[in-house]
């Protein structure tokens, strides 16, 4: 039995392991999210409002009113604390947590809010025993820790967050863990056989690298939750799985058909360096996000950095003209794509703007800032980033602010911009034309999709086995089109699993967003989850001819240094935010 035959038979375990992995986490994530939606509209611990009026409708209709990280007071049914009175506006005031401090501010100019009988004009930090006056009603802000301090007592948490049964979750995670390990073992054993036997150096390099990553993975999987008890292991496993698939397919593309004259890894150096840096930095990022409020303070810096990155790329950028974009910048001998890093900073800015129900003025400022950023993106032009960031922005915006009408307007103007792009950029028009003629003819505009689809079609359900595909002749098979070769070698099931992995990431980010104790974390986790999901959807539907191709690449699977690093950082932030504690800032 030769190596190709072996690989062909091993596709069954590989595909089944992946499907099992995905199934476990899909089950776990959807159940956890349902549970979270049902029970965990988590009130903040140790802080609440006390009301002396009996006719205030609230959760449970009690005298003590719970506070959430963002609590709205008003007469509308969407308000967290509903006050029915002619003197109270539909959306009157908002109390929110930011940087460990509770703030209150009025939501409209016509809804006066009084603190200790003084009307407030700006957001004001709340103190223990502050009397909040809204209409004819008044509330008392209670900080239990402070109250206890005044009474010379120590305050302790007495309510645990409602949580999905840990043992149930852990058994599923363990199933995922073992299928991952087996996948890892089979995958890398196969890869070593693909490398020409003359390349002894490459083989030892691969074995050492695979071993090192496996040790690192286990170390993180078992040790990190000891340090950060709330760390989302599922996200870490999914991150590892996506990285593994990416590395397997990239090494396979380099190894099969190699002549043995030079190292097969020469083309993969940046990929390896990015993965190494990303994985080594992971604990640091988790620590910074979980234990400090450093992210909250990065808002202004990032607001400057994002356009700066784009501007530098615009001025110094170089790259293949044929793709219609020049996104590479050489810094200290390394070619990097600053536009990828701009995604991280953009999300941070987005979250810090919409951490609570932003005032119209702030929304307007954001709109101007975003307009500048998008103008720069379109000047590059980096259509892929625009196609990903625009929907992400919109979703974070609508979830955090509930401004449905404005969202609709943005959506419409976004479509107008899209139509404009069609007329302005010739390569956009070419891509759309190529897409529309997909099934009738093969031309320069759709060749890569047609060839990619032929590969996908050839793979069938289970694929041909790692190394048995035919990547020859597909343009950009390492980066843009990697999904099609993945489908050819590991089958349609793997393709579907990749889609599911990204929706699982979103489900988990939604869960973290709900459980977060401040609006900033909610916004950021939601932004990251949404960005990853949308990027995957746009890329996958692009390479399979469901939508016009945009030039974005599949996160973690496609070749790329900057993009891999960016995605790893995003996952690091996501993991860090999942591990955040309510009193996170104080334990430092």
């Amino acid at each position, binding site marked *: *039995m030769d190596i*190709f*035959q072996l690989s*062909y*038979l091993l596709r*069954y375990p590989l595909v089944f392991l992946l499907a099992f992995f995905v199934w476990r986490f899909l089950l776990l994530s959807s159940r956890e*999210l349902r549970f979270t*939606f049902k029970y965990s*509209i988590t009130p903040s611990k140790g802080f609440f409002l006390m009301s002396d009026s009996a006719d205030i409708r609230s959760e449970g209709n009690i005298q003590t009113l719970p506070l959430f*990280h*963002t*609590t*709205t007071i008003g007469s509308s049914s*969407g*308000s*967290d604390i509903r006050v029915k009175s002619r003197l109270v506006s539909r959306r009157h005031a908002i109390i929110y947590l930011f940087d460990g401090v509770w703030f209150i501010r009025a939501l409209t100019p016509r809804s006066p809010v009084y603190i200790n009988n003084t009307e407030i004009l700006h957001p004001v930090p709340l103190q223990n025993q502050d009397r909040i006056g809204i209409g004819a009603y008044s509330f008392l802000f209670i900080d239990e820790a402070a109250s206890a301090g005044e009474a010379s007592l120590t305050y302790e948490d007495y309510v645990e967050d409602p949580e999905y049964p840990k043992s149930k979750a852990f058994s599923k995670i363990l199933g995922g863990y073992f299928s991952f390990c087996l996948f890892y073992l089979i995958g890398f054993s196969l890869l070593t056989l693909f490398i020409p036997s003359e390349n002894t150096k490459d083989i030892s390099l691969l074995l050492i690298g695979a071993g090192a990553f496996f040790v690192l993975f286990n170390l993180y999987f078992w040790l990190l939750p000891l340090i950060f008890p709330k760390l989302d292991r599922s996200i870490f496993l999914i991150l590892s799985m996506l990285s593994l698939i990416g590395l397997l397919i990239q090494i396979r593309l380099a190894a099969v058909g190699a002549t043995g004259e030079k190292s097969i890894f020469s083309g993969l150096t940046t990929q390896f360096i990015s993965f190494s840096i990303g994985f080594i930095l992971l604990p640091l990022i988790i620590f910074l996000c979980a234990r400090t409020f450093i992210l909250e303070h990065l808002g202004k810096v990032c607001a400057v950095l994002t356009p700066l990155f784009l501007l530098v790329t615009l001025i110094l950028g170089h790259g293949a003209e044929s793709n219609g974009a020049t996104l590479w910048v050489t810094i200290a001998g390394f070619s990097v794509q600053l536009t990828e890093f701009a995604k991280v900073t953009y999300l941070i800015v987005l979250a810090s703007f919409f951490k609570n129900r932003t005032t119209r003025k702030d929304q307007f400022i954001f709109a101007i800032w975003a307009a500048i950023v998008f103008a720069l993106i379109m000047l590059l032009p980096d259509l892929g980033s625009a196609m990903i960031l625009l929907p992400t922005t919109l*979703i974070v915006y*609508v*979830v*955090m602010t*509930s401004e449905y009408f404005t969202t609709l307007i943005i959506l419409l103007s976004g479509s107008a911009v899209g139509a404009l792009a069609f007329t302005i950029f010739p390569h956009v028009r070419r891509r759309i034309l190529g897409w529309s003629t997909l*099934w009738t*003819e*093969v031309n320069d505009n759709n060749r890569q999709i*047609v*060839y990619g*689809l*032929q*590969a*996908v*079609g*050839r793979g*069938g*359900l289970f694929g041909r*086995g790692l190394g*048995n595909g*035919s*990547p*020859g*002749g*597909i343009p950009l098979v390492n980066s843009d089109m990697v999904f099609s070769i993945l*489908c050819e070698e590991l089958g*349609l099931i793997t*393709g*579907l699993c990749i*889609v*599911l992995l990204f*929706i699982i990431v979103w*489900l988990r980010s*939604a869960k973290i*967003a*709900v459980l977060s104790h401040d609006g900033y974390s909610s916004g950021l986790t*939601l932004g990251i989850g949404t960005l990853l*999901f949308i990027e995957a*959807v746009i890329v*996958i*539907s692009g390479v*399979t*001819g*469901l939508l016009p191709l945009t030039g974005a690449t599949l996160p973690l699977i496609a070749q790329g240094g900057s993009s891999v690093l960016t995605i790893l950082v995003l996952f690091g932030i996501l993991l860090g935010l999942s591990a955040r504690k309510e009193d996170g800032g104080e334990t430092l």
Partner: protein
Amino acid sequence: MKMLLRNLKGVLVLFLLVSIALLVGLSFQQYRSKNELNAAAGENKQALKTRYALAGTIYDADGVILAQSKDGERIYADDPDIAEAVLQVVGDYTHNIGNTIESNYQNILLGNDRNLFRQFALDLFGKGLYGDDITLTESGELAKSAYHLLDGRKGAIVVLNYQTGDILASVSSPSTSPDSVIRYQDIPDTALFNRAFSGSYAPGSTFKLITASAYLESPAYNPDFTIDCDGQSTVDAYGASETGDGHGTVNLSDAIARSCNVFFGQVGVMTGRDALTDTAKAFGYGRTFSVDRLTATPGAIQIPDNVSTLSWVAIGQPVADSVLYTSPLHMAMIAGCIANGGVMVKPHIVQYFTTPAGEVYNQRSVSNELTALSPELCSQLETMMIGTTEHGTGTSAAVSGYTVAAKTGTVQVQGQKNNALCVAYITDDSAPYAVAVIVEEGGAGGETAAPIAGKILGLAAKRQG
């Protein structure tokens, strides 16, 4: 917080819908590309070599290997002459020639067409990666002999079994080695063109068989009808005529044996435009024949309302704005149809497939393509056609030990020498073979094409014995 949850749920629903749409779309695109994107024109040529590295073997009817994959290479018939003779039928893995076994049976050869269970069963034997083998009805040796008989001249030969429809040889000349097709270099003019299936030739006097059938069926038919042929048309000044002093007094039987243009020109006019067209269509003119997954270019007939033109079409020579042409395959099928009592069987090129585990499936079955004529009229025609080989224009098509019925043809083509044609078949049930031979610029059909037809039929009969 309430609003946040509500919004999140909204986005959740939206994203779930997007995911489901993507999953469904992905599966659909996969299914669709599997079935629709194998068009030869738009193929990823670079990937084809990898894909054919483990493809199945193509065997001829005698078990000779016509194409196989060995050590990652696709190799064609060992005998270079056989490889050239079957080139346009077998094709090449780069699909530089379309409408071939290699291109149209790609799914079978690569093993992409199996259902999950079959595939899984093969996987258990460790054979799943290999494609299925295909056994053809074509004989490499016979094709080689036919190819040699054409001797580098442009032309085509089709030999088929008229009882089963099996094509024993389908040769198109000039041809070239598969190697140069794959490299796409040093290819003689039109060598990639399958004349046998896709050539469009005026049938010439072989069309008189159809005119005769139409006449036999028409109310104008008179068994005692004769014509005094002096070489000049009896229709009008511009009707079908011939060179020389004519054949003297001829009846239908003589006219077929000696291929008398004047007689058939007159008979065509007597039968009428519509009846002639209908009979031609009954014999399959205008019909696209599929040879398993391969297709043959359909023939065409169109006669304007003009008596002299009609008389020319009736002898198989389209003039002015009339249209009359068909493929060599169809000509052989017409001969076979007469031989088979008026029933034309579906042509076949593929006998069966074999899985890597040795299981044979999709055995070809005999079925009727169409019925053109009654058996009685066929036997009448046959008797006249036998006259051709016994004392007519096609005596050189005779095969010793067998009775051969034939009809020769010579077609004038503007600006070049005449095309030589001959259709013939062995009447004996022990060797039910029909042949069509076309030699472009070969001169008189009786001198160039008929000897080839006779030799090929003899070889086919010998192969059988």
